[in-house]
């Protein structure tokens, strides 16, 4: 469903077939697993069975003696890593931690931490050989939650680490005055006067919430094939969201200049933020260097869950102050997010986003990044925002109940509008927050009657800031009137189609005339990750600029052909070049003359645009809770979102539906389960339970189009914000169905039964 909006475009807003669709549905698309090279070896990784242990000794002699095994490596085979920050696009990371996470140095810091790797002529030999590597461990006590980790006297995972204040963290500044065990950092976000805000409040409510560890759940496991040739040049074929980020990380880890590394991105089977850091790729490179042969590594499913970055388990405490008419006067939060074994949780984003849909004059968020003996977390779709919003939106729902105000009405009364300041002091400009709330209030779902026992309806808002960053693109006019569009942005969610549509719109030609292709790092300028909801926005800017350059070039060429002054020639938006005396060329006509009138025309652009438009979403959900089993069934779901301009509405709706389902998974079923020794007990997709099509209804979408003035076609990033509201929306619906406030997610039957059953 698309809310009415002015659509002055020819191509933008239509729903053409994606260029990569046929190859994908026929199995011809090439993924990393399809790579086969002459002489290729197969790599495998040995992982720690302990959550925390000192590595006393590694003896690979027996493995190396097995016929077919060509090399075994440990971190000692890597160049020494300096202590410096590397920028990963969505995150920044210390190189020493990055290398230690790839392969453990003196200690294994989580169950599944890589401690050694080998390469063999056959994948089965490689697997057999793993069992022959002898590792002597000295087990150490693990810390497994923020509560354990931050308790006074808790064992420190990194003994020399002390809490530092964010923003001073890369400088030789002072430590935090409040050193907390395993809290790597503290960030305070604040606006207004919190004490005054609570003093003005007539109602104050304070609640606590927790969420579990959830994985991105991409279906394609991590994979990489490396060839380090005799000239010292490294080529890597892999599945990544950011080939250039991968190149940069490999360069830092392996101490190679970027010019010696070529990263070739294959088709990608999902990422959601999880395919940005390096994991096996540096191991494959070092094994290739050691053996002189290409080395291919593919994670098993359990390795994906053991050894890559999920999102944080969290603890959030929220305190709200309000007038009796519902006007919010103060909002305070304490957030502690698990970072895993190395610093870098998205807790700052959690604190940044949770209050942003609302105009609250006095806000504070204290954010703690907490080390635990679990896998180092990675970005996951709106990293950090879902947990913070679960806490805020649940508390807001309870406040509405206390004040006897409709929960949507309460949100509308406090809605952030243009000029409202976020918690970091920045004022919103041109946002669609109110329009989203209005569309929700007018939606068929909100206005329908929910009937039946044990059923409830919940609503929640979500916010995400969206990203910009660098993008490059170039486009070549072919003599048959088509345009070759060359991109550095990996296509995860239909970006080839969305970018081809934008340049088609700029050039006034048909979508089918554009042939988009994603190329490797030697073939285009630096392009940041496909992530942060940035690609359709930022790379969209690049293809638009490339299209404008083509327009200018073709105007000049037509003027030369017609022997008139260039100022008399205009490239119009319908793709027709018009000159004096009713002369004109269609795009195809002039394309056919280029090679005889001066040669090919190309347009190129390297951009780093500002003006990213923030995204707001409102989700409505109906659930039914089985009173005997506490199983929650999602009956109906509607997601309303300001999408700026929907370039390809199918893919926008797909992003919203996918995000909503992932959020439902976080709300109801998805969670890492650890035993008391920190061993992950559900490292399979049978036991780590993601929703399937059988578990969720059709996710209805309502696209609100408030064009972003910072983009030529009004694009706002759409991919991340839809995962933000579902957690609270589902929890609020469960409350209406059962009377129980779910303060810990996922609300699995076990967790919910404890709340539903009488205390005996």
């Amino acid at each position, binding site marked *: 469903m698309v809310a009415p909006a002015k659509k002055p475009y020819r191509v933008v807003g239509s729903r053409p077939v994606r260029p990569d669709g046929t190859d994908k549905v026929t199995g011809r698309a090439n993924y990393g697993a399809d790579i086969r090279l002459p002489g290729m070896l197969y790599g495998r990784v040995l992982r720690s069975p302990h959550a925390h242990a000192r590595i006393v000794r590694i003896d690979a002699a027996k493995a190396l003696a097995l016929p077919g095994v060509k090399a075994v490596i440990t971190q000692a085979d890597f160049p020494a890593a300096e*202590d410096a*920050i*590397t*920028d*990963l696009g969505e*995150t*920044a990371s*210390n190189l*020493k*931690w990055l290398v*230690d996470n790839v392969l453990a140095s003196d200690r294994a810091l989580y169950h599944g931490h890589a401690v050694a790797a080998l390469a063999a002529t056959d994948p089965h030999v490689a697997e057999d050989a793993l069992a022959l590597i002898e590792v002597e461990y000295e087990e150490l006590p693990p810390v497994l939650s923020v509560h354990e980790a931050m308790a006074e006297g808790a064992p420190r995972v*990194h*003994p*020399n*680490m*002390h*809490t*530092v*204040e*964010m*923003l*001073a*963290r*890369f*400088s*030789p*500044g*002072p*430590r935090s005055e409040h050193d907390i065990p395993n809290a*790597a*950092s*503290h*960030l*305070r*976000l*604040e*606006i207004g006067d919190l004490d005054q805000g609570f003093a003005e409040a007539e109602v104050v409510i304070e609640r606590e919430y927790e969420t579990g560890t959830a994985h991105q759940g991409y279906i394609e496991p991590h994979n990489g094939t490396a060839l380090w040739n005799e000239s010292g040049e490294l080529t890597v074929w892999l599945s990544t969201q950011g080939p250039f980020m991968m190149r940069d990380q490999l360069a830092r880890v392996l101490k190679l200049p970027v010019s010696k590394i070529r990263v070739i991105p294959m088709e990608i089977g999902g990422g959601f933020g999880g395919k940005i850091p390096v994991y096996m790729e540096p191991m494959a490179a070092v094994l290739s260097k050691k053996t002189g042969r290409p080395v291919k590594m593919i994670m098993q499913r359990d390795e994906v869950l053991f050894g890559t970055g999920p999102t944080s388990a969290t603890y959030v405490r929220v305190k709200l102050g309000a007038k009796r008419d519902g006007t919010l006067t103060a909002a305070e939060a304490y957030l502690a997010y698990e*970072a895993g074994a*190395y*610093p*870098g949780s*998205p807790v*700052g*984003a959690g604190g*940044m986003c949770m209050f942003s849909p609302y105009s609250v004059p006095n806000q*504070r968020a204290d954010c703690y990044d907490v080390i635990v003996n679990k896998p180092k977390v990675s970005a996951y779709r709106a*990293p*950090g925002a879902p947990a913070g919003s679960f806490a805020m939106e649940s508390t807001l729902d309870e406040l509405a109940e206390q004040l006897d105000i409709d929960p949507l009405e309460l949100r509308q009364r406090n809605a952030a509008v243009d000029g409202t300041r976020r918690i*970091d*002091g*920045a*004022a*919103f*400009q041109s946002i669609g927050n109110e329009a989203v709330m209005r569309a929700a209030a007018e939606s068929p779902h909100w206005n329908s009657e929910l009937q039946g026992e044990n059923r409830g309806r919940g609503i929640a808002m979500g916010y995400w800031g969206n990203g*910009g960053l660098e993008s490059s693109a170039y486009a070549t006019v072919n003599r048959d009137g088509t345009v070759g569009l060359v991109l550095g942005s990996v296509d995860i969610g239909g970006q080839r189609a969305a970018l081809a549509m934008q340049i088609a719109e700029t050039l006034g030609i048909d979508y089918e005339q554009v042939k988009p292709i994603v190329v490797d790092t030697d073939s285009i300028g630096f392009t940041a990750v496909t992530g942060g909801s940035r690609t359709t926005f930022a790379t969209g800017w690049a293809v638009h600029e490339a299209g404008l350059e083509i327009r200018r070039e073709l105007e000049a060429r037509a003027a030369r052909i017609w022997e008139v002054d260039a100022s008399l020639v205009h490239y119009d938006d319908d793709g027709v070049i018009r000159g004096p005396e009713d002369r004109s060329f269609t795009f195809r006509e002039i394309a056919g003359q280029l090679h005889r009138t001066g040669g090919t025309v190309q347009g190129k652009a390297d951009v*780093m*645009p*500002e003006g*990213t438009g923030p995204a707001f979403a409102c989700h409505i959900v109906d659930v039914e809770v089985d009173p005997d089993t506490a199983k929650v069934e999602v009956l109906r779901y509607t997601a309303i979102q300001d999408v700026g301009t929907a370039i390809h509405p199918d893919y926008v709706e797909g992003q919203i539906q996918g995000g909503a389902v992932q959020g439902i998974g976080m709300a109801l079923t998805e969670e890492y389960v650890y035993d008391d020794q920190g061993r992950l007990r559900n490292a399979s997709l049978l036991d780590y339970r993601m929703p399937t099509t059988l578990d969720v209804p059709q996710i209805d979408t309502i696209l609100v189009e408030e064009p972003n003035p*910072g983009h030529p076609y009004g694009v706002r990033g759409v991919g991340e914000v839809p995962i933000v509201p579902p957690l609270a929306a589902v929890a609020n619906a469960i409350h209406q169905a059962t009377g129980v406030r779910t303060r810990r997610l996922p609300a699995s039957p076990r967790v919910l039964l404890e709340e539903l059953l009488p205390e005996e």
Partner: protein
Amino acid sequence: MATVFIPASLRRLCGDRHSVEVEGATLRQVIENLDPECPGIHALIVEEGMLRPGIQLAVNGSTAATGLLREVPADAEVQILPAMSGGAGEAPGRGAPPR
């Protein structure tokens, strides 16, 4: 004059002020002119003439893509933004940061 919003963690450098007004046609000039008002803040934001990794500046709510080179219109608001994700601290085994 640009109004620079000071994040909570740096207000101690600025006499607990939430915002400071300074002159400057570019972010580089704004941050240089901010340092006398908030002694030590320049070194926390700028390293070898560039923004430190993980620190972003925004002008009128838009993250400055060109970093310190970004022009600052008259009466603009400047925010010092925290990294939206990513961690902090020091590498294990490297000792405590100097006080």
